[in-house]
């Protein structure tokens, strides 16, 4: 595809612009994009952080496609931040906000974190002990199924005992 501006070089930058609700496909070469002042991928002027509140706004617009829907005020009970303010600012007000806005977060997180919505990293040692055990149990259960499918029953029995021990530990704490 050639650049729609100079019609000389191949277009290397493809993006969709939304201006006043109108969608436009843009295909430019790097040189023309720079001259036009369009966003350069990799240039530092345009990071995800600047983009975020725009991104959230878009979500909001899409969510209100039904004109008969009751415009409910979704608000965090702890800090009082409303969902519409969250969209504007792009920042949560407190830890409780995550629970209050839970039903609407997945699409946002998916966009920001390349499709991910669930944490798989570190768990706090002291307060997250139960979570660590739960995760371990889940892992072991998957292992158990694999072992049973492969008819490695001896090994499976060991894993089963391990799971039981962990479940006990989880109950106590």
């Amino acid at each position: 595809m050639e650049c729609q501006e100079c019609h000389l070089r191949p277009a290397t930058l493809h993006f969709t612009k939304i201006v006043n609700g109108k969608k436009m496909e843009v295909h430019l070469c790097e040189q023309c994009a720079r001259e036009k002042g369009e966003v350069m991928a990799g240039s530092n002027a345009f990071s995800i952080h600047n983009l975020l509140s725009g991104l959230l706004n878009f979500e909001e617009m899409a969510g209100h496609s039904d004109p008969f829907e009751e415009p409910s005020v979704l608000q965090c009970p702890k800090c009082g931040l409303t969902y519409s303010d969250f969209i504007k600012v792009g920042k949560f007000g407190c830890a409780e906000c995550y629970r209050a806005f839970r039903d609407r977060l997945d699409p946002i997180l998916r966009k920001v974190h390349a499709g991910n919505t669930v944490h798989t990293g570190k768990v706090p040692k002291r307060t997250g002990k139960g979570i660590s055990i739960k995760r371990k149990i889940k892992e072991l259960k998957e292992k158990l199924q694999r072992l049973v499918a492969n008819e490695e029953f001896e090994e499976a029995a060991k894993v089963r005992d391990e799971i039981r021990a962990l479940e006990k530990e989880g109950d106590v704490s």
Partner: protein
Amino acid sequence: MTLRRFIDQAVSPWMQGDGPNVDIVLSSRIRLARNLTEFAFPVMATESQAKKALDFIRERLEGAEYHSLGKFAWIDMDRLEPIEKRVLVEKHLISPYLVEESVHSAALINDAESVSIMVNEEDHLRIQCLFPGFQLNEALTLANGIDDWLEQKFTFAFDEQRGYLTSCPTNVGTGLRASVMIHLPALMITQRMNRIAPAINQFGLVIRGIYGEGSEALGNVFQISNQITLGKSEEDIVEDLRGVVMQLIQQENAARRDLMNFSRIQLEDRVFRSYGVLANSRIIPSKEAAKCLSDVRLGVDLGLIKGVTRNVLNELMVLTQPGFLQHYFKETLEPEERDVRRATLIRERLKKTGLDDPIE
């Protein structure tokens, strides 16, 4: 007094250490964002709430000691002069955000200035570990240790599904930002950077100038960091960044070799011209100084210039910034006056290295 030293010395002790690939990777950094369950996040907190959170944290951390690092100095931002804050930003010990946006904020800094914990930044706690050269895993290990130590004192906002809860949705999950500062002069000279930068973005990484978001790459120094914090483990995030940086190091080295093999005289000309400017100019704006320092550093890396150490260049990189310069001369300076002082300072430093004729 520790605070004085943080502010008076341009080069942090940790910067003088050696690290792998230190000729290209200037430093490696790990940052963890953590919040306390009890308090509203600093962005939403009222002034009195912010004060409460600060006092709560102060009570538990002022004078605290982390075994391998010794005591942290507690620095209240409210008690610093604007220029002192600027100096700490220029040394990367605190963020511009902490200076410009935060109320009732503080920073804990260790003696080597390799660790700083910002209080009441965008999140309640921001742990930052800096290492010289390419040492991301070492920085992560230290940051994790400090995180565990802090977790004994505070209950962190954590959700089984979402992980560590942060004020900005871009940090949620691990709260981890891993980054390297990397000097890529040869990729810039050969204009290969134009092709590489977009590719880096495709790996979920961000590349930008040294002073964080929105700043241009002064002196060919870039910061590369992860963008995704959710759905990947800390180790995987660091490993992905490490892999890309390894590639960049190889590319930069290849470009340096090409310059030496095919355009040696042009390269020497560029390097020694820049040296000449630094050694002789009477007025030098910060942009030009950064460019010339980058050229001279490349010359030192390639053995074209002998007798100038990287430490002197590191020092000049920090020292020639507006905040530091004014602090050094103990007065507020107009931009034109700054350019004159900057030139003087650079000439003096280079003379001190005893390098009359840098050409062997």
